[in-house]
């Protein structure tokens, strides 16, 4: 099997870390633009990223105008990349990133170094597992994240349990429901801590069709069982009981727990290196061109904004590739003045980009290509009110919002301040007033 694996070269123009939709899209785009050597480094034995684990649809509508399941979609993406001249090195795990776009890799033949002109980091996301959520209980078998569940079911055709409980109601939670259904597993319930589901588009209809109840305002408290999961203890905050904040404890017999969603960036590579990361989320700090704090590095795809669809990441990967191309050709404004955006409200989960580079042209365009023209913002609970970006007392842009957690909120970039003539010392503030 190792014979098929291409060894990474010692040098290249652009190195891309991660062969998910965003990395493959960026690589393909760079080749189309005429960049000579584009190398994708992927730690798995196959390219494609997360979609490889998904037998379900929808994938590919934006990219191929066709409906694919995840596996086919992943194959299609790698196929296109290879066809356009991208070199994909599998089983090549980037273990350190250094100044000067120097990457350290672990490969089946040991440690190697790759020196690039520019690097794009597309390492994606992972779900928050049980440990991070500080859930009580022992450590029986049968506790999985939906990512692990899907790969066990789809890639390895195994059935880890019969009647698990699903924690969360994000899109991915319903996708786990589909995977369960596919494998003949019947979840006993889905637990949601808020009073409505986190996913949109009324997907709860799936739960109804499969006859799986959703328990709202309910948290998982304790996992019972030593070797195998026997039951879970849940807390139901029951407002109907009138007694203030009284919680009802209930035991649900089950044989597995699926922790879904609460995605975080797979960014330990960055945290251990020299690039700035947003300390509370671990997202890389980028400007409106997708540039990291070291301008040899760019980041794109899900890791910059947990979590979006594959199509969205694919599009973003292409856009970032255009900026990388511009910067290779010296068309991107050099990295001089940057303004930080600081959020003043605890309801803000994150904002991206976290810094704005002031450009000579004074707008958000650079060269021929358009970069991000919006901030992407997420809140961490259901809120109604007004978001604004302020510079001192002056409001630059604002927007009314009525949002749930995990929903993308777009807010226009304040073009007026992007001129390099402006002062970069005073950070901008992201403000929220509730209504």
């Amino acid at each position, binding site marked *: 099997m*190792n014979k098929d694996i291409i060894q990474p070269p010692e040098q290249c123009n652009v190195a891309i870390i991660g062969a998910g939709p965003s990395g493959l899209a960026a690589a393909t785009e760079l080749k189309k633009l005429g960049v000579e050597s584009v190398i994708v480094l992927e*730690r*798995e*034995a196959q390219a494609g990223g997360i979609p490889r*684990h998904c037998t379900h649809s929808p994938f590919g509508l934006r990219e191929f105008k066709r409906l694919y399941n995840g596996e086919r979609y992943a194959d299609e993406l790698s196929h296109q990349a290879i066809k356009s001249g991208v070199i994909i090195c599998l*089983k090549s*795990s980037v*273990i350190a990133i250094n100044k000067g776009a120097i990457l350290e890799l*672990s*490969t*089946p*033949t*040991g*440690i190697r170094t790759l020196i690039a002109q520019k690097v794009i980091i597309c390492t994606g996301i*992972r*779900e928050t*597992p*049980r*440990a*991070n959520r*500080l*859930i*009580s*209980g*022992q*450590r029986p*078998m049968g506790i*999985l*994240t939906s*990512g*692990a569940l899907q*790969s*066990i079911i789809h*890639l*390895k055709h*195994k059935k*880890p349990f019969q009647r698990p409980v699903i924690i969360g109601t994000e899109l991915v939670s319903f996708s786990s429901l589909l995977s369960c259904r596919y494998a003949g597993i019947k979840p006993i319930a889905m637990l949601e801590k808020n009073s409505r589901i986190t996913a949109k588009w009324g997907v709860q209809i799936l739960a109804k069709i499969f006859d799986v109840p959703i328990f709202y305002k309910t948290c998982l*408290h*304790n996992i019972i069982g*030593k*070797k195998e999961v026997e039951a879970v203890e849940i807390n139901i905050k029951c407002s109907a009981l009138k007694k203030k904040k009284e919680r009802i404890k209930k035991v649900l017999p089950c044989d597995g727990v699926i922790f879904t969603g609460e995605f*975080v960036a*797979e960014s*330990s590579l960055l*945290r*251990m290196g020299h690039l700035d990361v947003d*300390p*509370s989320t*671990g997202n890389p700090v980028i400007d409106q061109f997708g540039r990291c704090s070291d301008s040899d590095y760019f980041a794109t795809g899900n890791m910059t904004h947990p979590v979006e669809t594959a199509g969205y990441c694919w599009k973003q990967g292409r856009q970032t590739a255009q900026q990388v191309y511009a910067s290779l050709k010296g068309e991107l404004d050099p990295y001089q003045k940057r303004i930080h955006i600081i959020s003043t409200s605890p309801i803000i989960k994150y904002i991206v980009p976290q810094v704005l580079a002031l450009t000579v042209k004074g707008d958000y365009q650079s060269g021929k290509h358009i970069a991000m023209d919006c901030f992407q913002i997420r809140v961490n609970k259901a809120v109604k009110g007004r978001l604004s970006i302020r510079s001192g007392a002056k409001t630059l842009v604002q927007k009314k919002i009525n949002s749930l957690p995990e929903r993308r909120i777009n807010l226009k970039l304040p073009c007026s301040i992007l001129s390099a003539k402006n002062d970069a010392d005073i950070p901008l503030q992201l403000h929220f007033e509730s209504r």
Partner: protein
Amino acid sequence: MPITTQYPKKQKTAHYDIIIIGAGSVGCAIARKFTLEGAQVLILEKGTDILDGASKGNSAILHTGFDAPPDSIEQSCIADSYQEFMSLRDKLHLPLMKTGALLLAWTEDEADQLDGILKKAQYNNVNDTQRLSAKVILNKEPQLASHLKAGIYIPKESLIDPWTTPFVYMYQAIENGAQLICCCEVSNGQFDGEKWQLETSQGKFKATTVINCAGLYGDLIDQQLLGWSAFQINPRKGQFIVYDTPANRLIHSIILPVPNKTSKGVLICQTIFGKLLVGPSAEDQDDREDASVTTETLQMLQKKGEELLPALVNESINASYAGICPATQFKDYQIHYHNKKNYVSVSGIRSTGLTAALGIANYVFLQLQKEKSIYSPLDTIIYPKRLNQIAECETRDWQKEGNQGIVCHCERATEREVVTALEDAHLPVNSLDALKRRTRVTMGRCQSFYCSARLAEITETYFKRPI
């Protein structure tokens, strides 16, 4: 394929010199000692793997014994063990991180106790300890909270690998002729005046002498075999939280608190696997098996950690676990030689058993040898070749050629090391827990989001309970 529980797979002997009940840290070290001294040793372990009891979860500190009860068996075993560890380290390739420890006072009250602790350290012959001012300490460890009052520096406290260390002891015992049987629970036994016959879940075994190293079950084994026990096990649980690798850079020394009357308190230290540990709690319980964690305690540890090391606020928690230690109503170890019955009870090895194991083995051997000199040491001792290293201070497999690629990305465990562990000639793994302890798979930040499918595939025919 039937799964082996007998290592090596050779014919059982009709009669052994020694049967050791329990393959925890202590049983492993004792097995090594008696084997090298020339005894025919059989180890019976009820778990599917060695280190399945108290020894599976601890803080992995190699103690100097500076704070051990003066004149106790514990103190002397720790001191002896520390020296022997250092002399064996190269030959057995035992990883070690010389971090040193800082015992810190956070209130004036605690600062007043430092002199007493220093005196005790000196009495215990740990003479290189030193009182430091808050300023000097903050210079050394700038991330510590600034409300620090003063502290003691204990340069020789170190970190070791909690699993590879006892594993190597057992490995050397087996390579030199000992035999280990797992999934073998001792349920009863009779002594006929000359020899023992033990009844187990895998049949009967005979031996001249029995050594009870059953950890949390030490008192029950005594009761079953002797009819009485000189002590009672009071299980004490300690919960830990583990922060992910990036947190590891925040401190270098082992950060100890001033102990209170009931426990040694919550410490913060790196692990030899490149993580950061906060814990343990100290909770007395009746259950000998219940290693569950609780949200409340984990939150308490998180708060405590952030109080002492404020930068932890932005670090992510990777894992949590609990260990149970075999405390008794006594302060000291409970090592009793019942010479009329050819029986040694090695119990109550509370919070220092990983460190003290080599010393305990020497101590037990001397007790037996005092009576009658029965064994003659092996002419040539086999030292195991370098086993797979999972400590970050060693060269790991992913750094070497031919590793076949990484399977567990968070912990960088390679396919080759997983397969090697599954097919080891002497001690192949037959459970996921065992595989974790040999390779670190699934122990990282993603808790198997990425690797579980591939692992399920590779291990398919090897485990008693497939993944």
